[in-house]
């Protein structure tokens, strides 16, 4: 176990380092002179020189990379060129919207997918299953940002149950905040729920063919009961992979959805950063998102091993 964990941790650190190097090279080296790039064509040379100094661009590339990494490890992302405040503070503020949104969507998508998958698997290849699977095909094909617009048309403009956008902040209490995030989370969750339900159904059907399930059935347990009591746990491994992948996807997807609902999250921050050529902001947000994706994948791997100890040895044997 410790050997496996050590190997996995080494590869985690290497992936994080390589990812940060890619981001650094793309943002700091590709544009030539980032300071001139950020200030635009009409900048006067003196202010470009000031910015160069402020960004520490005169140092050699490798030194700049390690300085940046060192600062990152202290949570220091640098100063935003447009907002004139530490980017770390901006990111923390925006994460308070993006992270709850992604988690809310994950909860919703799992909550929708579980019962649907159990229902369909218990009726595999019968009419109920076919209809449900047809609906999930449509669910997968719906672009979430379009679905978000349709939700706004129905629930905000038509029924007026929710506001069409904006975020009141958490200081007014949890409920108003969650309410503002409900439509965005639904828009993110439903297409994901369709994918999750299909994969779970397939995993369940496969598990239902196993001997111990037949034994449980022979004991007189109903099919749905067997699924909830026995099959679900064993079908969990492929499902966990997808849930993990979904969390990274939801985090990235929330970037687009935030634009539909005018939510002050990471997505709005990074798109404004692109428009204003604030490379410090873009670089920092991308680093946070990519690190989050890598960490999520790592945690999913750890959870596998917790669920199925056999995997520890398989990994070593490879």
């Amino acid at each position: 176990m410790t050997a496996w964990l050590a190997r996995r941790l080494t590869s985690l650190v290497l992936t994080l380092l390589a990812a940060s190097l890619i981001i650094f090279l793309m943002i700091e080296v590709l544009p030539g002179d980032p300071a001139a790039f950020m200030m635009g064509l009409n900048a006067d040379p003196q202010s470009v020189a000031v910015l160069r100094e402020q960004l520490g661009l005169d140092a050699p590339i490798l030194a700049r990379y390690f300085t940046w990494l060192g600062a990152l490890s202290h949570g220091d992302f640098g100063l935003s060129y447009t907002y004139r405040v530490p980017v770390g503070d901006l990111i923390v503020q925006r994460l308070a919207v993006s992270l709850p949104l992604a988690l809310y969507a994950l909860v919703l998508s799992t909550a929708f997918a579980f019962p649907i998958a159990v229902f369909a698997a218990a009726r595999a290849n019968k009419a109920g299953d076919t209809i449900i699977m047809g609906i999930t095909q449509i669910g997968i094909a719906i672009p979430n940002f379009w679905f978000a617009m349709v939700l706004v048309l129905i629930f905000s403009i038509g029924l007026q149950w929710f506001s069409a956008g904006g975020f009141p902040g958490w200081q007014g209490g949890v409920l108003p905040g969650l309410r503002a995030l409900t439509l965005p989370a639904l828009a993110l969750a439903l297409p994901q729920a369709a994918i999750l339900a299909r994969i779970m159904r397939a995993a369940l059907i496969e598990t239902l063919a196993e001997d111990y399930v037949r034994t449980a059935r022979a004991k007189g347990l109903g099919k749905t009961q067997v699924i909830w009591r026995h099959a679900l746990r064993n079908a969990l491994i492929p499902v966990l992979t997808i849930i993990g992948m979904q969390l990274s996807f939801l985090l990235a997807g929330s970037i687009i959805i935030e634009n539909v609902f005018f939510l002050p999250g990471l997505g709005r921050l990074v798109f404004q950063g692109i428009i204003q050529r604030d490379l410090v902001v873009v670089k920092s947000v991308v680093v946070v998102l990519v690190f989050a994706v890598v960490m999520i994948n790592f945690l999913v791997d750890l959870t596998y091993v917790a669920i199925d100890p056999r995997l520890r040895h398989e990994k070593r044997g490879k």
Partner: protein
Amino acid sequence: MMPRLSASFVIGAALSAIILLAALVSLFWTPYDYAALDIAARLLPPTPSHWFGTDHLGRDVLSMVMAGARNSIAVAIVAVCIGMGLGVPLGLLAAAQRGWAEESLMRVNDLVFAFPALIMAILITAVFGPGAINAIIAIGIFNIPVFARLSRGAALSLWTRDYVLAARLSAKRPLQISLEHILPNITGLLIVQGTIQFSMGIIAEAGLSYVGLGAQPPNPSWGRMLFEAQTMASFAPWLALFPGFAILFSVLGLNLLGDGLRDLFDPKSRRGVA
């Protein structure tokens, strides 16, 4: 005997054909010029003269949807080609060489998976500015590990087959075996995955154009049409509905087609284990 075609194959092929046809026809004919402004005819709801209505500048929505199909298909196809063109050889190489080649390929794969297409597009756009080409590159890069993993996995199981052993005994080189024996046997799998990545490419392109990182005006794109529709959707819902349905039907069509093709290539999968 011809295998019986599944319902998903027929529906999927029909939907995909309609979208493809719309894109092809738009090359030489659309009901109106998709870029022509006609302020007098602005924000018309769907009528016999404008089937899908007109937008705030009086442009014909049907013509824009048709021309948008072209953009979506082009971006998605090129992105799939990038993914296949680089990913499949890498996957075959890893399966043939094992050892360090395989190990480094898998590590690089993990690394690329850490950059979802959207994040890659953000990086590229921040430096090079928005455009359809950058969208293609971002989506294409994300496709590479998908095809590399798939072809490595499939090739690994083929390398243990008797006919591959026979080929090895007759002193054929790994490259030759990969091309003559492995690749032809994973083509079906690649085509199925290709249709799935194609449909994902269409959604990704629409998302990127929606946030302004994809096709730029005056090139028509479904994603940007939706972005422009957003502020007008309450009084002109057709502006939001038709491009959305275009995306929905093309993605649905390709996914169903992929399912149908998988059934054709691999009858075992018909048992309902998707």
